[in-house]
């Protein structure tokens, strides 16, 4: 199966086909289909959780769950799932595996420091400019970093896309550089798992060093 015309890789597909299908509907119906369609995944997820908590899967429980989920959705005015995210199964598997491994290794590392001279463990806060401009990817990266022992996000500058990450335990400049690399690697993992094609392209051509964002202030404090 060859694509008849070249277009942005991967991001087309199902989403576009669905959009074309919706376009064919009469106008008033289209609005409703869109309204319900974008909220469907969240309602489905809430229903699944309801069934898990309920304990057994029956038709009645499913219908009740869907009604409760829809009601909660409407009552809480939850936002629809943000667009601008793609789910890339391979990337998701990779980010889960790597974070689980990190969680384990750095917990052992932390345990060692707890038992062996905890007074000498030092920390550091580093500023790491992110390559992604997506709020959601930034939030995911921050969450992932905070989840893993040894790094914690203590602040972020959304306008310039800078994360301030506290690392612990560290010893010297070398471990500080390692922390910086880890932050960038975590970001890359999340972008490759959830980013759009544009996000991933930005990653490859991105800036690995601390360079001032265009029009922004240099995080290094270059301008006197």
């Amino acid at each position, binding site marked *: 199966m060859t694509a008849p015309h070249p277009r942005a890789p991967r991001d087309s597909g199902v989403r576009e086909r669905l959009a074309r299908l919706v376009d064919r509907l009469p106008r008033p119906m289209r609005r409703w289909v869109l309204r319900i369609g974008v909220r469907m995944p969240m309602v489905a997820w809430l229903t699944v959780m309801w069934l898990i908590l309920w304990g057994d899967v029956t038709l009645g429980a499913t219908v009740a769950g869907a009604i409760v989920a829809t009601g909660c959705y409407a009552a809480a005015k939850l936002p629809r799932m943000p667009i601008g995210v793609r789910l890339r199964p391979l990337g998701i598997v990779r980010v889960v595996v790597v974070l689980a491994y990190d969680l384990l290794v750095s*917990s052992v590392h932390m345990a060692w420091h*707890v038992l062996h001279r905890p007074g000498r463990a*030092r920390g550091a806060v*580093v500023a790491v400019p992110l390559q992604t401009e997506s709020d959601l990817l930034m939030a995911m990266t921050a969450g992932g970093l905070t989840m893993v022992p040894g790094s914690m996000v203590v602040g972020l500058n959304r306008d310039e896309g800078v994360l*301030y990450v506290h690392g612990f335990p560290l010893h010297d400049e070398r471990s500080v550089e390692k922390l910086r690399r880890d932050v960038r690697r975590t970001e890359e993992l999340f972008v490759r798992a959830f980013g759009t094609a544009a996000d991933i392209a930005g990653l490859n051509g991105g800036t690995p060093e601390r360079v001032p964002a265009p029009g922004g202030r240099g995080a290094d*404090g270059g301008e006197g």
Partner: protein
Amino acid sequence: MSAGDIITAVFLPLGAAFSLIGCVGLLRFPDLYGRLHAATKPDTVGLIFILIGAAPQLRSPGAMVAMLLVAMFQLMTMPVVAATLGRVAYGRGEVDASNMIVDELAEDLREVAARDEESDDGAEAGRR
């Protein structure tokens, strides 16, 4: 002893050990951030290990899925708590700077403050 029993025998004590270490770290680390790291992260690993250890002893799959939810929500909420506490601690100046190798947040905040002062001066001069 079945395979499930072995999993329980390995993971339950391991999980308990991680939780214990988290608590010991809470007591022994010198500054607030160290304690925050120790209190939140190894505990998560401990909880997940305890859940893994308990799962084979439960015969009902429903309970296992519920435990999966417990682990998931722990993983989702813990970073929020840690980041919030960290942020508040920093804002209140509860952070021991002598324990830091570098603090680029402080550097950047100082820079912003300096710039704001400058622009304030400029605005005042303009008004005069």
